[in-house]
């Protein structure tokens, strides 16, 4: 077992006293048990791609890095199910499954570094969530190492299973606050035969929302529909279809009937999606907005004060889902702060949310990453208390300081 001190392993500026790198779930449980015995607070790091999430931990004695837990434990192509250790990266899973013409239908950013454990803990996703759902829809089983070191399983290895409470759902997006996800089981999908992307260039948010609506009316089934712009003025709406060759060609043809779109060559499509990756993940400020899909134009106009306070800003809207990312560099701290708080207030007023994924310290000083507490917060708090009564797992980092 390796235990080292490493100042480079910090979570939001908080440096742990000790870093562990277990190689399997048993070792991980031993470490967690030892931490429990000594009353140590524990942070968990996978690929380290989302370390900026949340508030700085209130205490961080030890960090457990899961990257050395990197085995694919079981892969049954005929059952389209895979069981992996937490530290396996998304790219590694895709490489293994691609050989059988299958895939994990998850296209979160940084696949070379992002681990499956981390993707579950942060509920990570990419544009194709529009078609395949979120991590919660793909995860069918987990092994959780609890704060007291006890190893608990939930779900199973078959897609259809209602035995017991759905622990896999409970840990999705729980940001290491309920336990360490040691292994995860996923359902897989067939690898699409082909994929094609078309774009509607330089359109307004109103037009983008209307196109999304008309695509649904026309019974088109895109894998993703993403509007990208520098600011929310002129947007390029990229629509991707994937599946069997004939079906994709047919849908691309039907899409052209909806408005002036341009089918992209393979290279051009790759460039469009790379541009998406960069726009979504770059910048000192990164925020995530959730609203109803039809509110896209309202969301866009709501954000104009924020765009005025940024430079190099990007707007990335997953238009069928109502999920929008804004990234950029802060030009004016007080103006950006005010704009974030005003946008958040308007969004939460209509049932949505604004979460700050990353921001410079001077913005964080006045903008909580999570925002107002939901009505169910007392219940969340109680869930945390039941799983981690001593508040040792990532204490203070999650919503409301859980």
């Amino acid at each position, binding site marked *: 077992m390796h235990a080292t001190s490493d100042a480079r392993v910090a979570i939001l500026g908080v440096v742990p006293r000790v870093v562990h790198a277990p190689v399997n779930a048993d070792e991980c449980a031993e470490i967690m048990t030892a931490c429990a*015995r000594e009353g140590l607070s524990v942070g968990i790091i996978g690929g380290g791609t989302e370390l900026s999430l949340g508030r700085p931990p209130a205490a961080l004695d030890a960090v457990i890095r899961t990257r050395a837990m990197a085995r694919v434990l079981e892969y049954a192509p005929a059952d389209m199910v895979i069981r992996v250790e937490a530290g396996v990266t998304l790219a590694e899973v895709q490489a293994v499954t691609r050989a059988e013409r299958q895939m994990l239908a998850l296209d979160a950013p940084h696949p070379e570094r992002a681990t499956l454990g981390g993707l579950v803990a942060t509920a990570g996703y990419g544009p194709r969530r529009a078609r395949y759902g979120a991590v919660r829809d793909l995860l069918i089983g987990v092994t959780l190492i609890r704060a007291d070191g006890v190893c608990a399983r939930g779900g199973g290895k*078959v897609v259809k299973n209602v035995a*017991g409470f759905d622990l896999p759902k409970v840990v999705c*997006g729980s940001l290491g606050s309920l336990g360490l996800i040691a292994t995860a089981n996923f359902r897989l999908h067939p690898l699409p035969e082909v994929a094609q992307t078309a774009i509607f260039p330089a359109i307004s948010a109103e037009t983008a929302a209307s196109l999304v609506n008309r695509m649904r009316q026309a019974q088109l*089934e895109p894998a993703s529909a993403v509007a990208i712009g520098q600011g929310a003025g002129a947007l390029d709406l990229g629509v991707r279809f994937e599946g069997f060759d004939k079906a994709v060609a047919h849908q691309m043809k039907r899409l052209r009937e909806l408005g002036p779109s341009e089918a992209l060559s393979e290279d051009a499509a790759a460039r469009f999606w790379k541009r998406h990756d960069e726009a979504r993940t770059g910048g000192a400020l990164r925020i995530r907005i959730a609203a109803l899909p039809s509110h896209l134009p309202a969301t866009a106009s709501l954000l104009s004060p924020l765009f005025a306070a940024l430079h190099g800003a990007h707007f990335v809207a997953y238009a069928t889902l109502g999920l929008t990312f804004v990234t950029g560099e802060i030009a004016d701290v007080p103006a950006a702060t005010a704009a974030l708080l005003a946008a958040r207030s308007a969004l939460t007023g209509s049932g949505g949310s604004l979460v700050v994924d990353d921001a410079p310290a001077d913005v964080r000083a006045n903008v909580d990453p999570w925002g107002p507490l939901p009505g169910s917060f007392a219940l*969340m708090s109680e869930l945390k208390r039941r799983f981690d009564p001593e508040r040792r797992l990532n204490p203070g980092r999650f*919503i409301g300081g859980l």
Partner: protein
Amino acid sequence: MEAKTAAPIAQDVVDRFAAIVGKPHCISDPEQLRTYECDGLTSFRARPGLVVLPGNTAEIVQVVKLARAEDLPIVPRGSGTGLSGGALPIPGGIVLGLSRMRRILEIDFDNQWMRVEPGVINLDISKRIAPHGYYYAPDPSSQQVCTIGGNVAENSGGAHCLKYGFTTNHVLGAKVVLADGNLVELGGPVLDGPGYDLRGALVGSEGTLCVVVEVTLRILRKPEATRTFFATFPSTDEAGNAVSLIIAAGIVPAAIEMMDRLAIVAIKAATGVDWPDVGAALLMDVDGPLAEVEHTAAEATRWAQEAGALEIRVPRDAAERDVMWRGRKSAFAAMGRISPNYVVQDGVIPRSEIAPVLRQIAQLSVSSGLRIANVFHAGDGNLHPLVLYDAAVPGQEALAEHTAGEILEICVRTGGSITGEHGVGADKAPYMTSMFSDDDLATMNMVRCAFDPDVRMNPGKVFPTPRLCGDRPGKYVPHATETTGLAGRG
């Protein structure tokens, strides 16, 4: 089976419940209570002390608060179609029937969601939105009578969840009344509210966490086209192989259902469908954009032939398709035509194990001397063996129950599950230990305790042994040998 009973609830307490919901909606007469002694699993019976049928959320809050004040357990109930005894009353306790809560509150087609009360019938949701070209995907076979609240409790599936997922994938949010009477919203029409995914914990919790008073559902645009075919095979081996080949070709059918010889005989007797007497049949739907469906239907047909299909029938029109599907969906009830009694089992196996597991089930049939029919969701390995027996023959009911239990053990041994869609309820609670360790169950219990620390909601279900919550899980206490330095950990 005789119902378990307990001392009746005092009349003054009954009167107070009646004052909340109105006298006609408060049932305490022993004869009328009989109706509520069991759900779809009729071999488990218990006489509730009182059945209350509230008509709105405010009444539910008051009922829950009064039950708490009187320290009475609450069992929520929809239509009572569940097959695992999830709505089995606690003797002398409250049954909270949600059948009067059946309003459709809000529909937002642009954003693909609707908000309904828990007593709304599953099929009525799709019927209501069908004129607009939308539908609600989960379609349990009981969809003409089961309620959406019951579906949320059980995380109900159905034939079409192979492609579209289960209830949990289609519930965006819920408004619930907690055991302390507090009203809380979990999730909602907008995705990704910050914090824990509590609606994920709720769906499939079998009424053990809270009472659902409103549900926000995802609704889907109808696919452009659907193609159905019915294929017959000499035996379940070839049919199982056909399923494997179709899935391996990258096709995700909307549904792919298998029936064995005995199931076909029963369905024919019950519904009059003109299916041939064969060893096995598949009923399959593919749906999606027209060009995709034409391709996948042709490919699937080709693979079925490759696997040795005897005949492939394509329905001429929607009416004929409906007849085929009605045949499949009436399969459980159809058993009544060929056997006085039957046990419905629900277990899951990895799809690749279908053929060998069906052979093991056939051996069980031989060794027990009981006929076993198989009708199931082949695409996701969700078996529904029906163990046929005659209750008039002494010992046969117990033998049938035992045989059904052995099938579950096969499911667990292959890496599957003791239930794919009917739930654990009262029936399968004892089998939970074959799938989960005590630590696993204790961890699930933490979720329950966060919602309902008094264990007032549907006690005695899901968990194999009664579990209490205690105010606070214990702090780590080192073993004596550790503190004396005789042994180390980690």
